[in-house]
């Protein structure tokens, strides 16, 4: 298919060259229908799986080293193996995609719901369970409609529900929708939410979902994209799968590149084969920085990730490369910021997100993120004090003690501190708020100092709208 074709009916998706494992149907306008799915090999992977022993399906997934695509990058096959022999057990699909910059699960759900449903059935079958909840972010009604229609059609066609494809296998998939809370993307919060509660994370241990998840029963939470890989994997096998991507990270990833690039979009990219430089400047990808400006910084893996800079452009796009370099690939969200970007303002915006989205459970996160936001806003409003810069770092140290992960900066002799950060909190949301602060202050301290020195002069231009919730 065409290189770099903008696909109008799949806004955001860029149909570039290379293998298509999860986005192969996107170019079809009717890719979400059962007809198109069936006409293009849909449900064949599931049918193949149903002819295998469940344990063999699980073994195949393990062998393929299918890394989770939700952020943490943990191998799905290994996670599945953590389930104790206890029933009932559940599969919960994490379609709550809300990480700033992340934008691929929505396309997978809107553009190819049958692929996801098929992936769910394969996973349920391998795990020996018959109830799957598909948790879709509340603010994605189109995804919900597409999945609802797909499920209704698949139930009617005997592909989901009782006696799937005429076999003895019976599995229900229930579409569930959220109502707006980023933290619910965290798997234990997702489970709380699915139980009808406030989406506040549970502490791990003891609540590792694989052992004590939904209703305190063994539960696997997998990301949409993770499961969307399964049909292809079943049909083509793990050896074929491992031909793509790198040894440690086989297969592809859906990457969303936004911000200051010429051709922002969601690209399906082989893992570990491409560098950030290729992605930002390559003709097969984004084609350069907007207006050919200089790059100032970029976020390699969603709002939660520490920032990278020019020096990290040649890092390869895979978790095992990005982590040691001081950040994370996370959910495949890359935000590019050019030289025109105000580092303090960008920092505030990301921090504000975490302050608004803290669930409120842990003192350091609830109070700390709000305080961080207030201090940053004050600096931007022109009322900063010189001691505020260190204060920001110290509030951050209350949430994430020790040295925060950071990218190397040869000029200032700063060495990379590998991901992940330490935390005084239950989940990583609070510590995530420290990422933009340490990233920005360590690299652009002078910008903070200038803002503070200039005082209220900058008030007008940098006012942020609105009130925090």
């Amino acid at each position: 298919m065409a290189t770099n074709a903008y696909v109008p009916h799949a806004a955001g998706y860029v149909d570039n060259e290379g293998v298509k494992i999860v986005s192969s149907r996107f170019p079809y306008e009717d890719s979400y229908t059962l007809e198109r799915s069936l006409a293009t090999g849909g449900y064949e992977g599931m049918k193949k799986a149903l002819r295998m022993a469940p344990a063999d399906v699980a073994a195949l997934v393990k062998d393929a080293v299918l890394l989770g695509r939700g952020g943490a990058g943990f191998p799905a096959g290994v996670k599945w193996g953590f389930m104790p022999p206890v029933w009932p057990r559940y599969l919960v699909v994490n379609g709550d995609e809300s990480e700033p910059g992340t934008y691929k699960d929505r396309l997978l759900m809107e553009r190819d719901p049958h692929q996801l449903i098929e992936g769910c059935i394969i996973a349920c079958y391998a795990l020996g369970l018959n109830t799957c909840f598909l948790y879709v972010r509340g603010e994605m009604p189109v995804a919900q409609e597409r999945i609802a229609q797909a499920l209704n059609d698949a139930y009617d066609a005997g592909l989901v529900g009782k006696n799937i494809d005429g076999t003895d296998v019976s599995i229900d998939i229930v579409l569930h929708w959220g109502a707006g809370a980023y933290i619910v993307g965290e798997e234990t919060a997702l489970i709380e939410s699915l139980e009808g509660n406030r989406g506040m994370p549970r502490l791990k241990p003891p609540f590792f979902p694989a052992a004590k998840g939904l209703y305190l029963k063994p539960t696997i939470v997998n990301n949409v994209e993770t499961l969307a890989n399964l049909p292809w994997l079943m049909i083509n096998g793990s050896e074929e799968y491992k031909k793509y991507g790198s040894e440690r990270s086989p297969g592809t990833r859906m990457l969303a590149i936004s911000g200051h690039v010429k051709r922002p979009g969601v690209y399906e990219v082989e893992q570990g084969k491409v560098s950030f430089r290729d992605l930002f400047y390559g003709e097969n990808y984004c084609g350069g920085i907007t207006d050919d400006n200089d790059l100032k910084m970029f976020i390699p893996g969603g709002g939660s990730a520490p920032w990278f800079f020019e020096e990290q452009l040649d890092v390869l796009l895979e978790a095992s490369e990005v982590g040691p370099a001081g950040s994370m690939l996370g959910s495949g969200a890359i935000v590019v910021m050019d030289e025109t970007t105000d580092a303090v303002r960008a920092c505030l915006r990301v921090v504000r997100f975490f302050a608004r989205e803290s669930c409120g459970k842990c003192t350091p996160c609830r109070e700390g993120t709000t305080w961080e936001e207030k201090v940053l806003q004050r600096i931007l409003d022109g009322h900063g004090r010189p001691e505020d810069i260190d204060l920001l770092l110290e509030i951050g140290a209350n949430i994430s003690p020790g040295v925060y992960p950071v990218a190397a900066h040869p000029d200032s002799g700063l060495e990379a501190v590998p991901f992940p950060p330490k935390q005084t909190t239950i989940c990583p949301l609070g510590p995530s708020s420290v990422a933009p602060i340490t990233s920005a202050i360590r690299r652009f301290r002078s910008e903070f100092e200038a803002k503070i020195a200039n005082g209220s002069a900058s008030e007008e231009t940098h006012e942020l709208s609105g009130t925090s919730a």
Partner: protein
Amino acid sequence: MSRLNEENVALAHEIISRYPRKKSALIPLLHVAQEQEGHVTNEAMEHLAELVGVTPAEVLGTASFYEMFKFEPQGKYMVNICTNISCQLVGGEELLHHAEKTLGVRPGGTTEDGMFTLEDVECMAACTEAPCLQVNYRHEYRLDNSDFDKLIADLRAGNRPEIPDHGTLGAVRQHIPADRMAGIESPETAGTPAWFASRTAQSN
């Protein structure tokens, strides 16, 4: 009287039947309540409490955690403008300012004619199409000020019939015909699926 109407009570029962425990249905049911009235009323929360067997305080505890549930009347169209980082970089905040001026309200406010409620929101998973917004959670991409003005004019003129009133989520709902359902059981009584036991035994 803003308890669930008869039709929605039937729908509520159908939704509840898809969960191993009733309380799990709470968020979907709150959406049903919000769809009926445009916002979630106290009476509706009391009704939901009865339907799922919890106290109204527990319903409110859950409902108030989530951004999408509103407890006061809203405009017919909720205009949510993203100002998160990807949008901020390419003009999301400026778009919000423009919207504030055009609609004459601050984020959280509703225009006097009850048509629009403006919100300043977090990332809506359309970052590559920034700046973007949602009207009743339907995306609009890459808007400049004049696109925004046209959108508002179209909405006022009723030229966007595909966008339902605030509160309506997916226009298509899942329905599982009783004879197609594998069966949802309570976690206390559910066990190993028969097919798994037999297939595992066979392969050994």
